[in-house]
């Protein structure tokens, strides 16, 4: 599935106004969405770029490499995300009482309910210039088991960090507008080895961007990326929304490389010298 994206920034002071405008534009009430994102990184270190080409001479007659692209793709490592849908009740209370005492996360759901956990992988956005950012994503809903254990085993991955996203969602035709901001738990997160099984209280979370600014993400999802007409209609709808919001929120293309989800190669000695935790 491909996502067409545009982003805009909303200062904290204008949040309520923008919320109302969006509600008017979409003619629906805002829907509050809370979610927790947990980021995982493959345990394997990425190979040095171009190392495959320089890997020594051979006496064999040069044959065409059968699948260089696939091999290259396999060599590229990506960060992956685990997303948990939350409600206000899921958070802990002020006085430190935890609501759940379970030691492991559980993605089990009852029949007829939507999944609470999903696994999400995002590609680096396309290089094409259509006026919107286009990226390939893959979302897998998890319906049972321990999502953390699943992720650890799937890579194999290791836990990097977790953060929370709060905001309001609107649906306007095929455009999904998500006005949100990122929260995180204060403290040294790099010491954590696994995501918290019981959540801290919502009020103890801190803003990642201390100015309190919100981000507006406008998204159109496209299944048939190969169909030019479908893609075109999606792009047009998103651009229409962009035009409609002009003067309220300036939606624009983010820098492609700022949305890079690949794991960067770091030379060993440099990594050791810097010693920067990721």
């Amino acid at each position, binding site marked *: 599935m491909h996502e067409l994206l545009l982003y805009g920034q909303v200062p904290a002071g204008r949040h309520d106004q923008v919320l109302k405008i969006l509600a008017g534009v979409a003619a629906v009430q805002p829907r509050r969405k809370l979610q927790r994102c947990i980021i995982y990184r493959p345990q394997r270190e990425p190979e040095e770029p171009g190392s495959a080409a320089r890997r020594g001479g051979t006496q064999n007659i040069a044959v065409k490499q059968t699948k260089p692209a696939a091999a290259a793709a396999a060599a590229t490592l990506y960060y992956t995300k685990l997303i948990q849908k939350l409600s206000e009740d899921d958070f802990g209370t002020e006085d430190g009482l935890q609501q759940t005492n379970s030691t492991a996360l559980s993605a089990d759901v009852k029949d007829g309910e939507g999944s609470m956990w999903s696994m999400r992988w995002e590609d680096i956005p396309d290089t094409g210039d259509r006026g919107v950012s286009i990226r390939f994503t893959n979302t897998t809903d998890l319906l049972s088991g321990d999502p953390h254990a699943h992720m650890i085993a799937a890579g194999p991955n290791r836990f990097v960090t977790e953060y929370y996203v709060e905001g309001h969602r609107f649906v306007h035709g*095929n455009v999904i507008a998500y006005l949100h901001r990122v929260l995180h738990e204060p403290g040294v997160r790099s010491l954590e080895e696994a995501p918290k099984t019981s959540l801290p209280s919502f009020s103890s979370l801190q803003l990642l961007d201390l100015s309190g600014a919100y981000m507006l993400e406008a998204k159109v999802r496209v299944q048939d990326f190969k169909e030019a007409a479908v893609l075109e*209609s999606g792009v047009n709808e998103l651009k229409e929304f962009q035009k409609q919001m002009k003067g309220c929120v300036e939606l624009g293309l983010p820098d492609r490389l700022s949305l890079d989800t690949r794991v960067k190669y770091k030379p060993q000695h440099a990594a050791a010298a810097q010693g920067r935790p990721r």
Partner: protein
Amino acid sequence: MSGTQSLMDVTLRPWPSLKKDELNADDLTRQIEQLTAERGSLREITEKSLQDDIIAGKDVPDGTTEEHDGTKETKEAPSKEQRLQDIARLQHEMSGHLEWAKFAANNAVDLLSLVLSADVNKRTVNSFSHTFRHEGLNQGVPFGSFGISRENHDQHVRKPDEAQSLAEYEQRQELVSKGSRMDALDSAVDDILNAAKNVERQVRRETTYWREVRSISDKGWPIQRYRSNVRNVPFAVRYGLPEASDHFKARGLAPLQMDKDGSIMLHPALKLKPKTLRVRISENGNITGTSRLPIEGETDDIAIEKTIQLARDSLFEEELYHEMSIESRQLVAYGVQFRESVIHVKAAEHSQKELLIDCIPRENSIGGSQDHSHDWLAQNVAEGLRLLLAHEHSMRLHRRSQLPPPLTIQKREAPPPALLRTLLAIFKHLEGVDSLYDYLETVARTLENASLRIQLETTREISWANLADSLKESSRNSTSATDQLLDVFMKPFDGKATLSLASSSGAYLEAFVISTRTVIGQPTFGTEHKLSLPSSLVTDLGLFRQLKFSSVEETTSYLDYVLSLHIAHRQLKSDFSSRATVKGNDPRITIKSKSSKKKPAADHDIVVELQNGELKVTASDADSEDLTDGAHHSHIWNAQSAGISLTEMIKSWIG
């Protein structure tokens, strides 16, 4: 005098023409023109013709000849002295004139020069005449000693009558001016008054308009700015429902136009005759029930609000009708017809009852039939349909606010609302379930009367029965309770009847389950009855565990068969355990009578027949060929009266 001298020897001769050797083009043309004027066409001027002319004496034109004659006359007129005298006299006269002219001209020059000399810049001696220079300036006449000024005649004393007329004139002028001033003031006052009145009217108009707009707005109608024609129609009211289908949504906006005295004028969209949905029940062609008019709002509303409300209602009813008429095209197979703008819905398969749904102007009297026996039904159907559309509206909002699926090449189309389908499904379901359950109750009572223990439980619709619980459970759901309630009607209808049979030990273990499911559409296209038999019965009698029937008759006849089999093959067999033998698949059992001294043991065929809610048991001698034999018993149990128990009866027959 030199002038006179020169005139003495003057001779008059023609003005010497310019001697030119070569004529230039202009001169030539002029000469040709002259020639043409004198002698006609240039072509006729030849040497010969000129010669002829000279000979004929026509050498010069007439005028010139006369002049020549005149000069000749003056020259050669009377005598020479006389002529000389005349000339002298004329000379004298002429010189006198000339002198005088010279003098006058000099004077004029001097005068002008002297006047001009007042200006220092124009003060030159040369501009004066010779004489004046000598005799004036040199004698001490100073420059600028002569002045000219315009004269002022104000001091002029008028004559009395002139003065009087002038005074009168002035007086008249004053009067006229005073009059015109008054006139102007008058008209100014009028204008101001008019303006004031106008302003007052405008203010009153605006006040009225705004009061009405406010009262409309206070009632909760959304008011919005109107872009076109801002001057007269600054606002518009949106009365259409926000989730109506596109066509009706567009109609749901009416500009609030100001009329002369400020009250809101009706827009054509509002002026349209409000319509209403009418549901009638027709039985054998006679109308036996009609739905009522929807209840109107409070009567103390001002007219415009009432109109808006009516327009809203009308729009809603029209949409309802529109959706149903579209839907009716797909439902022809279910007996829905669209004839002459009336939707005919066959309410039940076996009765002649028919629903007639149409949309009529509100003013038309909705009634028209004397029979009101089915008014309740018509009214309920109408209200139900309205509720369903309202539900559809809120579901549209719900669907709209869900995450949209990713775009694909297939276009998503909103499914048409199921209005008639729901109505039909309810009718069909209730009809099927009711007739089935009626039958089941009769059977149960008959069997009870025959002392066969049986227990019947029926639920017409499971989700209706569990409504309260299911609503309580899903309180956290995002949809409102009303929508959840109505959503029940959108799902397939499930009825369930359980017929429990008492086993020999007296516990109700074995149960026939008949579930009835009604869907207008896939997969059943109507009502389907599913009969599940208890497993023990299945193994004992060798039947299918589950069977599906599409009509009540099939179900009941099969149930009759299965029940009579059950009675014959299991109930009676367990009662007469050792003596009974079962042969074949018919509900028939052969029981050996107890052997006594009088009679040898005889076989009795017991035939159990369950039909139309009546249980008929026939016993006959299996050995006797003759059916009219006296050993032929029969008894019928029915639902009404309790009778002797089946087992007792058979025992009494066979001993």
